[in-house]
């Protein structure tokens, strides 16, 4: 009779996939991802691509906020750095799209680390406010440095081509985005099996204790900002190439808030939680829009209040999750698994 998952050796505790059931689920999930695009229509494919991009960004933010405990409201700004760098590299200097994604991610990592410097003196809400300032400053730079970014005008990025394939076509992009999301997830999962990852977690749990145990806070916090921003840059660059258009409106403070909501609703400090949160926050507005469409005949006024309804739902979902299930969808998922594992003797 199983009463839970317990580890009897360090190997099993450290393993990436801890139980046979987990292995089966992962295989099923990967199969689903591989089969999905062949049955999906254009709309669901677009949604799936958005989820993949959001997952990469959410994992990035989770490394910083969920695992290292540094609250960041600068996600939108960092994504803007990734998107604009990728776009400008392709447009102005003719860098191939794959090269621009790599360079843009590295640039975002550096920018992230620079804005991470205040984290050495600040934590908690002061850091949140500092990153909020970072967000505003980055976005201001983007909209006012006309010579480089074109200011408030949209930057049009040429179609990414790969052996003649248009990579920003939904079907082709799907493979690129989900492959990168998979790599991001694997890298992150493994990151937290190394001493770097454990240092991040130690900083989150008790920074002073971590320093006493020899974790160089200066180095590791900057590293956390850098690694996190790297993935955020990947998602920003992907967004630039997928949408073919980069405008500052896509990277406002609302985006930072959206991503924080993703990791809180999904589960802080968890890769699967990032996926859950990214899916939830991408599908929820789509679901609402569709519901609005089908209710239009019965209730014609719904069109005019739809945007407000979206915003209200967004706020309400955040508040309700924080009050009712602060550990997010990941915890709900664990609870469901526990229920079936322990059934019928769940006490």
């Amino acid at each position, binding site marked *: 009779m199983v009463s839970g998952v317990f580890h009897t050796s360090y190997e099993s505790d450290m393993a990436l996939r801890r139980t046979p059931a987990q292995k089966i689920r992962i295989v099923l999930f990967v199969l689903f991802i591989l089969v999905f695009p062949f049955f999906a229509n254009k709309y669901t494919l677009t949604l799936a691509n958005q989820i993949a991009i959001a997952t990469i960004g959410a994992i990035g933010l989770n490394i910083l906020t969920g695992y290292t405990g540094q609250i960041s409201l600068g996600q939108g700004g960092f994504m803007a750095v990734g998107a604009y760098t990728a776009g400008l590299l392709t447009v102005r200097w003719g860098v191939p799209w794959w090269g621009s994604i790599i360079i843009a991610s590295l640039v975002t990592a550096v920018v992230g680390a620079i804005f991470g410097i205040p984290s050495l003196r600040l934590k908690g809400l002061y850091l949140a406010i500092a990153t909020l300032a970072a967000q505003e*400053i980055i976005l*201001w730079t983007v909209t006012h440095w006309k010579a480089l970014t074109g200011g408030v005008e949209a930057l049009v990025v040429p179609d990414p081509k790969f052996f003649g394939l248009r990579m920003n076509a939904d079907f082709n992009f799907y493979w690129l985005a989900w492959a990168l999301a998979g790599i991001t997830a694997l890298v992150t999962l493994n990151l937290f099996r190394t001493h770097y990852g454990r240092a991040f977690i130690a900083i989150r749990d008790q920074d002073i204790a971590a320093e006493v145990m020899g974790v160089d806070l200066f180095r590791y916090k900057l590293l956390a900002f850098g690694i996190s921003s790297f993935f955020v840059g990947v998602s920003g660059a992907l967004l630039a190439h997928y949408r073919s258009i980069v405008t500052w409106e896509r990277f406002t403070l609302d985006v930072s808030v959206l991503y924080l909501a993703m990791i809180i609703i999904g589960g802080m400090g968890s890769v699967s939680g990032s996926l859950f949160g990214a899916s939830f926050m991408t599908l929820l507005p789509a679901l609402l829009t569709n519901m609005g469409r089908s209710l239009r005949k019965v209730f014609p006024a719904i069109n005019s209040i739809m945007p*407000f309804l979206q915003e209200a739902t967004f*706020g309400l979902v*955040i*508040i309700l999750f924080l009050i009712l299930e602060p550990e997010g969808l990941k915890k709900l998922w664990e609870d469901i698994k526990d229920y079936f594992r322990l059934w019928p003797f769940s006490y």
Partner: protein
Amino acid sequence: MDLFIQLTLTGLTNGAILALAALGFVLIYKSSDVINFAQGEFLLIGAYVMFSMLVQFSLPWTIGLVLTLLVAVGIGVVVERLVLRPLIGEPIISVIMATIGLSSLLRAIVSTIWGNQPRAFPSFIPSKPVHVLGATVGADRLWAIVIAGVMLFLFNLFFTRSKEGIAMRAVADDQQAAMSMGISVKRIFAWAWSIAAMTAAIGGALVANIVGVGPELAGFGLQVFPVVILGGLDSIPGAVVGGVIIGLLEAYVGGYIGMGLNQVIAFIVLILILMVRPYGLFGQEIIERV
């Protein structure tokens, strides 16, 4: 010289409005350690409720203002009871996110009721231009300075003379000790939120009188951050001084340097202050080694 006086006046009046928004913010932080990202929305609600009272119910502005303040108190209490109280003792990020969620919920409610088109506001404070030392400024802007001053005075009185004010400071200092002295911490939190909503409503009505009422009023919620960090998160005089300094700074930068730098200068100052002196000009210095 004329430009200088003009800019100074504009800066002072903007600063006074910022200070009003910041007062409520500081009050909430001081008593309950909560950073309120929905302060701008409180301003917005205040402005729209006042608008309804004046235009839709065509009440005289005195009764309208009193009713608006009552609505604000109600909203403050409800928000505290439903959203913030269940989160007492939760990590900072949860509280921050809850107030962010609250801000988007409130914004949505406001847009559902009043739409999101900016509208003209019937000026209940005279807004005729007044000439001061060769510069021209709307009379309502000067009133903003006066009202901010009065509010500061009242707040000081409240915190030093009234039982609730002293209790609030006690709670801010040490919740457990305050509780053992028979102070109801929950009631104090409710007080703090309703007073904050009230000051925001007054600020909102003032801004609406000056620039009209529209959803972009909520933008004040973000501009409050540089103000409170500069003044010190837990200092009431700091909120006013910070508001005035930031207001003047933005006016001078906008007037003398331009290039839109005035939109971001406050945040640059914010980062610098956080690096050098996180507790601000008048904030309580808590030595926290990170």
